[in-house]
């Protein structure tokens, strides 16, 4: 027996104290459970909405497209891919210009050729090279794919191409595996296109030169056909266009649908607001716990004085109060997670099911992510309890024992 015994004693006292005022403890647990349920359900739903938005709004296309000023563009579609053209732009033109207000930047190379070997004889095929890591307009349209991530030897085909998943596509004499297939986009280039990783497209340079006798400019590593840009929430299309045109020479900037850009930016701002709301909720709960524990400490003033008189150290007094608060609030947090799961179930029945019927995808957060948020809610609730109890307990622990035993207030 040692210090562990005194800690066991104080832990036991903390548990017993919770049982002394059952209605008050219950109220505290319920308050924390409600806050925790709202936080858990809110965060899980919000993360799911963000994931769904990233797919759904990316399908709307980019906000801006940047191509060479000599490129011919006749856009009526959403900005999902750049336009096939032989006029190219330096691959680092935009990153070097350090334009503010750009949230995402995806470079693309498009080789329009009738000698790829795909399709019928003389059929024009768009070979689109993109970087899956920075892409935000192609992968959201994936309707089916093989398991695992896309590899350099893989291609994704547009909806109009009749190639089954896992089959082999021979392009300029080189074999590729059909990794995925896009849904119908309504964009001709994308529906008929064949999408490769940029490195794979550049890897075709030798074969292309051999068959065509020339090396198309977009197959030079330092050049790209163009860029697709998604703006940051605070940036406007006019500002970004002006900055691009003033800093990057010999380019043309084409804007997508201003309405959808506005909707996307607005939703991102709304989500940021919701995060703020969750933080404010947690802070107000912490203040409530602090007020409650100030009252509890004041009520137990004489008992705390007695414990100190017979040898309890300040740290033991604080530890007991903090343990009591942490137990109650962690318990509330755990109950809150269960309530939150029920709320999410209601949300799923009320909204997600409806969205599914309308063909709008809703991507739930995965299991590990949900478990991590649940654990964070329980730990967060305990931290709120500890933070709320710490100050009043510390202040009480510092008071003169005589004052605790005999003075009021």
């Amino acid at each position, binding site marked *: *027996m*040692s*210090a*562990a*015994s*005194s800690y066991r*004693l104080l832990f036991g*006292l903390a548990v*017993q*104290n919770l*049982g*002394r005022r059952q209605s008050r403890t219950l109220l505290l647990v319920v308050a924390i459970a409600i806050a925790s349920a709202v936080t858990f359900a809110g965060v899980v739903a919000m993360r799911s909405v963000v994931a769904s938005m990233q797919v759904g709004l990316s399908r709307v296309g980019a906000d801006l497209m940047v191509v060479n000023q000599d490129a011919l563009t006749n856009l009526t579609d959403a900005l999902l891919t750049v336009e096939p053209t032989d006029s190219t732009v330096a691959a680092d033109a935009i990153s070097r210009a350090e334009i503010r207000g750009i949230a995402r930047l995806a470079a693309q190379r498009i080789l329009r050729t009738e000698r790829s070997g795909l399709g019928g004889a003389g059929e024009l095929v768009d070979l689109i090279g993109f970087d899956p890591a920075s892409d935000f307009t192609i992968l959201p349209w994936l309707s089916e794919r093989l398991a695992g991530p896309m590899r350099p030897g893989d291609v994704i085909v547009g909806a109009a191409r009749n190639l089954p998943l896992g089959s082999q596509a021979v392009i300029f004499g080189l074999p590729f595996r059909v990794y995925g297939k896009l849904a119908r986009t309504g964009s001709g280039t994308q529906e008929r296109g064949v999408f490769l990783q940029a490195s794979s497209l550049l890897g075709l340079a030798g074969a292309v030169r051999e068959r065509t006798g020339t090396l198309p400019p977009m197959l030079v590593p330092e050049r790209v056909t163009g860029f697709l840009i998604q703006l940051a929430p605070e940036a406007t299309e006019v500002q970004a266009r002006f900055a691009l045109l003033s800093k990057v020479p010999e380019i043309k900037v084409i804007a997508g649908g201003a309405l959808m850009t506005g909707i996307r930016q607005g939703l991102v701002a709304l989500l940021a607001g919701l995060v703020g709301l969750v933080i404010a909720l947690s802070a107000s709960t912490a203040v409530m716990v602090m007020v409650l524990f100030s009252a509890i400490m004041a009520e137990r003033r*004489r*008992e705390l*004085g*007695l*414990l*100190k*008189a*017979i*040898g*309890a*150290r*300040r*740290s*033991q007094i604080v530890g007991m109060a903090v343990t009591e608060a942490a137990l109650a609030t962690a318990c509330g947090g755990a109950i809150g997670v269960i309530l939150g799961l029920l709320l999410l179930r209601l949300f799923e029945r009320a909204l997600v099911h409806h969205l599914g019927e309308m063909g709008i995808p809703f991507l739930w957060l995965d299991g590990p992510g949900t478990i991590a948020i649940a654990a964070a809610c329980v730990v967060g609730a305990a931290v709120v309890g500890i933070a709320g109890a710490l100050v009043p307990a510390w202040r009480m622990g510092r008071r*003169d*024992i*005589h*004052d605790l*035993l*005999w003075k009021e207030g």
Partner: protein
Amino acid sequence: MLACRALAKRYETDRGPVDAVRGMDLDIEAGCYAAIVGRSGSGKSSLMSMIGGLSRPTAGRVLIGGTDIWSLSEAGAAAFRNQHVGYVFQFASLLPNLRALDNVELPARLAGKGSRREITGRALERLADVGLDSHADAFPSELSSGEQRRVVIARALMNEPRLLLADEPTSDLDEQTEREIMALLRDINRSRGTTLLLVTHNLSLAAKAERIIHIANGVVVP
């Protein structure tokens, strides 16, 4: 055993400072039964709080067995109170959610010394010393006022302190119970050699002490 040197306590109030104890010098021998008497507001409770390590003096020193208790760290002072001083307060000072046995065990368990079995055995002995070993499992609300006070005395003796401080220990008890409690305290003082310092305004109780210290206006009256 106990020495106070130039001990003073000043309280700041809305109506200005109040000097409860003014530069008091006091010596009490080991094993002595001393009573501090005085009218309400004379400073006797403030003096006992400073002697017991419950209230920091404004000036002066308190030496118990040669240790200047107010020069100790917070943890050191807590350990000193735990090991060397026992308290019997004028109010029911038992934790209501603990059984009598658990209340008596408290000082030993806070100290974290000894096995649980050894502590329980010792606590049962202390309860037997005050005639309440059959009430070990009773909660304070199931005990009479006199029995509660006996449990408090058992708890005060748990770590076998050198100094037992009793502040108006019988103020809310009937005459018969008062006599029993005072007899118990006196017996502890005699049989264990524990120095007993009793604070009371009851002169008949004080009369049974070996030494009576009169206090008025924060000073010892000769």
